[in-house]
């Protein structure tokens, strides 16, 4: 790496977020934090720490710290990419995530917790599982075999192993089209989107992998199938925990997994809401451009989500490492960070009020250019003045 310029070395000291990235490891510490807070205060409320932080503290931090649109200059991108420090910030998420899961199983099965406390604990662990899918997302895009394996391991907790297949080979191809289960449409509420994306992504992941194996002349029902071997990992994790802590932890394991992937799908909901790639004259979808992802430069959410909100650059350069992702002026910007926006997504009338006019403005008032929920097309066109 002698080619790394002195300029790049000097610049490293100006990477303002360099020492903020380990803060992402606060997330897998949620179960420990919850336990400590309950222990210190005697208040069962703190079993809900994960939800309190994700839905309360994170949005607050977004308001407090605002936006950071600082971009690394092109000359240091290669240097940032090869700096292993940044990788360790993501790798360390995994051991903490799994120690937390084991500790939570112990707390759940040891007795002494009310049903409400137990639910809070499952929600707290579910938040880790969900944000763990984001860590898996960062790792799963890499060319490195180790990182691809780590991605699957991170997904095992939420039973969402097919995400690794579907996201790269499905979502990245069909993003911002009517065919993509993981791109939400104008007029589609989060609650309509949720079953569509969960079932559609599952189907897509399976079909992609079956087609790949077919090309190789293999049968789909084997451990070569990356969907099946990823699920097998979930089965192994859950199986071991049931053997160790008893079948009583099974509802806990299922609950935290569902909470986890529902959190991930809430993030999916806001990343491409209403955005649509046009068809070219030959009937293909135009290329995905920065205009096809909602971005946010709120620094707090960006630090906890490894720059996921610099989503346009992610779609343009999917293997680029999080520390090197750039803000893009051409991309539509959300009014706040993802943490705030998922709260709005749960409340459809509020979401519509905040987001629909932004989609409309993005298309200069021409609603017909948006990705519209088919069942609500007439109503959406009538509402936004294009009923012709």
């Amino acid at each position: 790496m002698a080619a790394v310029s002195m300029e790049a070395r000097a610049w490293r000291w100006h990477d303002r977020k360099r020492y903020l990235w380990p803060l992402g490891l606060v997330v897998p510490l949620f179960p420990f934090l919850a336990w400590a807070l309950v222990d210190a205060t005697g208040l069962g409320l703190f079993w809900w720490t994960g939800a309190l932080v994700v839905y309360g503290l994170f949005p607050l931090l977004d308001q407090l710290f605002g936006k950071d649109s600082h971009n690394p200059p092109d000359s240091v991108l290669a240097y940032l990419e090869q700096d292993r420090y940044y990788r360790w910030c993501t790798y360390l998420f995994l051991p903490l995530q799994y120690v937390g899961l084991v500790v939570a199983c112990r707390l759940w099965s040891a007795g002494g917790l009310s049903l409400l406390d137990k639910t809070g604990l499952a929600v707290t662990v579910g938040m880790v599982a969900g944000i763990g899918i984001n860590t898996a997302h960062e790792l799963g895009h890499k060319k490195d075999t180790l990182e691809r394996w780590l991605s699957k391991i991170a997904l095992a907790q939420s039973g969402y192993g097919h995400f690794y297949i579907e996201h790269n080979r499905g979502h990245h191809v069909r993003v911002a089209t009517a065919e993509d289960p993981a791109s939400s449409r104008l007029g589609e509420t989060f609650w309509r989107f949720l079953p569509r994306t969960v079932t559609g992504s599952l189907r897509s992941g399976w079909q992609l992998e079956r087609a790949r194996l077919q090309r190789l002349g293999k049968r789909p029902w084997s451990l070569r199938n990356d969907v099946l071997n990823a699920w097998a990992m979930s089965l192994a994790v859950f199986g071991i925990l049931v053997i160790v802590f008893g079948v009583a932890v099974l509802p806990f394991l299922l609950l935290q997994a569902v909470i986890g992937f529902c959190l991930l799908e809430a993030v999916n909901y806001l990343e491409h809401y209403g955005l649509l790639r046009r068809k070219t004259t030959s009937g293909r979808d135009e290329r995905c451009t920065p205009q096809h992802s909602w971005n946010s430069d709120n620094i707090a959410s960006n630090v906890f989500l490894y720059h996921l909100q610099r989503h346009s650059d992610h779609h343009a350069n999917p293997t680029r490492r999080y520390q090197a992702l750039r803000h893009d002026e051409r991309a539509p910007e959300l009014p706040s960070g993802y943490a705030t926006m998922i709260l709005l997504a749960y409340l459809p009338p509020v979401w519509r009020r905040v987001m629909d006019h932004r989609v409309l403005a993005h298309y200069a008032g021409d609603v017909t250019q948006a990705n519209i929920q088919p069942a609500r097309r007439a109503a959406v066109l009538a509402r936004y003045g294009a009923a012709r």
Partner: protein
Amino acid sequence: MKSWQCLVCGWIYDEEHGWPEEGIAAGTRWQDIPDDWSCPDCGAAKADFEMIEITRA
């Protein structure tokens, strides 16, 4: 003639066929495609491709 595969989504550029859809003539070598060109399917940058050997029947 070589083939290049998008590392993200699996789309394949075959030098033999080019990509006439966008005016890249058959036989255009990979190195002659502009650096700002991107995957027609998923939009990944040219740097996200790698060479693969394709065995033809």
